[in-house]
């Protein structure tokens, strides 16, 4: 009864008239296009700048100030060893992260999903809380942890302060809370029957994990690997804080040094270096769109 009273005064209740629907749609597209302008403009500048002598706004200019000035000289850096050194370091960090986060999360996620043990609840609560706030606050203390690790004989030279290994190790640890929750979620969704049957038949826990469970969570491992690769490849703050000197710097740190240590900044050179560093990301962006959107939804939800 009340529905009749609160019904809108419009004479013919029903779906919106076509013309209003159309207007709504124009409005939606208009809003979305406006919203992405800064992003599109930013990338447009990056692309234009990499192949021009200099830019004013989005316009390429030549030495005389006229429109034009197309040049490939900004890309000369690819013939220098410094950039390749930085690239190898970036790659090492990213690959080390994919392996480290992958292994620790796949085994830890399995135990947390399938096993009962003392401390399980504490660990889950702990990682969820850690996952919620960024660990950047701990960098000061991690500096001292790394210096301590560097004093360990033999392996210290690989994982201490100012080593690529040390940076990678810190990055693995900082991504773990997220990785563990993601993998736990994937294991939670698997059926219990096959695992139970294998255990009854006397298979060891490790064998069940490696031969039966891990193959079933491959999509999860793929998603986690892509995500951690991107995080490792883009890493700036941790490498910047824990490395000194160009030998151990990765691409973002190398790029930032170019920006902050030269005056005046050659923006066209740094744009080219920036674009160069984005090549793997552009490939991922083109070929794994669906997966990327899913990762950033599921991967950060905590379940």
């Amino acid at each position, binding site marked *: 009864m009340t*529905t009749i009273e609160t*019904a809108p005064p419009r004479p013919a209740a029903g779906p*919106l008239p076509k013309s209003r629907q159309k207007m709504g749609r124009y409005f*939606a597209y208009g*809003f979305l296009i406006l*919203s992405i302008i800064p*992003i599109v403009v930013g*990338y447009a*500048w*990056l692309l234009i700048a990499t192949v021009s002598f*200099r*830019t*004013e*706004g989005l316009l390429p200019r030549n030495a005389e100030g006229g429109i034009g000035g197309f040049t490939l000289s900004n890309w000369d850096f690819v013939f220098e060893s410094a950039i390749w050194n930085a690239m190898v370091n970036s790659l090492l960090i990213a690959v080390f992260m994919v392996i480290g986060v992958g*292994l620790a*999360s796949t*085994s*830890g996620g399995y135990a*947390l*999903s*399938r*096993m009962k043990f*003392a401390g399980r609840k504490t*660990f889950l*609560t*702990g990682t*969820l*809380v850690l996952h*919620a706030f*960024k660990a*950047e*606050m*701990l*960098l*000061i203390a991690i*500096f001292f942890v790394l210096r301590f690790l560097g004093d360990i004989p033999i392996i210290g030279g690989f994982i201490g302060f100012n080593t690529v290994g040390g940076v990678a190790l810190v990055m693995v*640890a900082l991504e*773990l809370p997220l990785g*563990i929750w993601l993998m736990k979620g994937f294991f939670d969704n698997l059926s219990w029957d096959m695992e*139970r049957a294998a*255990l009854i038949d006397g298979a060891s*826990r490790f064998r069940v994990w490696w031969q039966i469970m891990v193959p079933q969570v491959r999509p999860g491992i793929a998603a986690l690997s892509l995500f951690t690769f991107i995080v490792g490849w*883009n890493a*700036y*703050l941790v490498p910047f804080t824990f490395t000194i000197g160009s030998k151990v710097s990765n*691409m*973002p740190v190398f*790029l930032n040094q170019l920006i902050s240590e030269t005056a005046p900044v050659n*923006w066209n050179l740094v744009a080219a270096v*920036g674009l160069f*560093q*984005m090549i793997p*990301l552009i490939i991922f962006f083109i070929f794994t769109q669906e997966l*990327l*959107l899913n990762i*950033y*939804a599921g991967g*950060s*939800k905590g*379940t």
Partner: protein
Amino acid sequence: MTKQIEEEADALAGAAVGAPGPQRRPLGRRVRSTVSAYGFMAPAVALVLTFFVVAGILLLILSFTDLQSTNFNDAWTFVGFDNYERLFTDAFFPKIARNTVFYVFTTLIFFNLGLALVLALVTTSIPRRAGFFFRLVWLLPRLTPSVVYIMMWQRIASADPFGIYNQIAPEFLGASGGNLYLGGSPWTFVILTNGFIGASFGMIIFTSALESIPKDLLTAAKVDGAGTWRIIRDIKLPMIKWPLLFIATYQTLSLLTSFEYILLLTNGGPGLFTTEVWALTSYSRAFATYAGNNQWAYGATWAIVLVAIALVLAVAYVKLFRFNELIEEPRIENL
């Protein structure tokens, strides 16, 4: 109902191998399964202990010392609560605290929550492919390396004749041709750079929540003559209440403790602490050398106070999301 069936299946499986009931397992088996669980957990536990637990304790201890570059190689001397006293009486403490609150809530309300919600609502109201395209473009900043991303914004906001914004409407943001992020309107650009990253996270979460609203509910409302605004207010928003709360708490924490983009864009400037936030203060006291002096202990003190605030929020967030449902007991052990 399903749970009951599962429990029965568990009992049957137990009976099949002659195992005792779920409550009483022999001690030997319990110990063995705990040992193997620790084997699986070992890598994760070792890393979390080293880089979170030990680091957290170390941070707390550091905040009671006076460690800085000048006495870096000496034994640590403890100075009690001196650092805390210094922090709360710091001439710039009120300014930095105000900046932090302003930064966190402005970015949260306008971008990480507000724009994220609008983007999710709008992209789910247009054809699927188009919505997907716009969400994908919005994901780009998040995929871009922070250094490159900030570089783009610096070029958008730099002084005439190079800045892109200054070519269009130089008067509006108050620098008339000058540098915007280090002059005319630093806060606008600090919030924009962070907001364009933050909005996409909420957008994706809200989108998947909106897409899981049953279609017949929306159709029924439309047939009854409900307009777009009423459908949003009375159906969509109540249906995504939990994701909204989740993003609000999660992003508050995340904004509070992150500073990478501010460090790259303005590094707290221009001038004295204009865009300096709490997390950045902690970092720059310890790592950025003010006249060559790294004040490790003082930086750690800023960090500890912020961690304490963040922990309170984090506990609220765990409570809010009925955490116990997420960590239900694993059933396979009842074999």
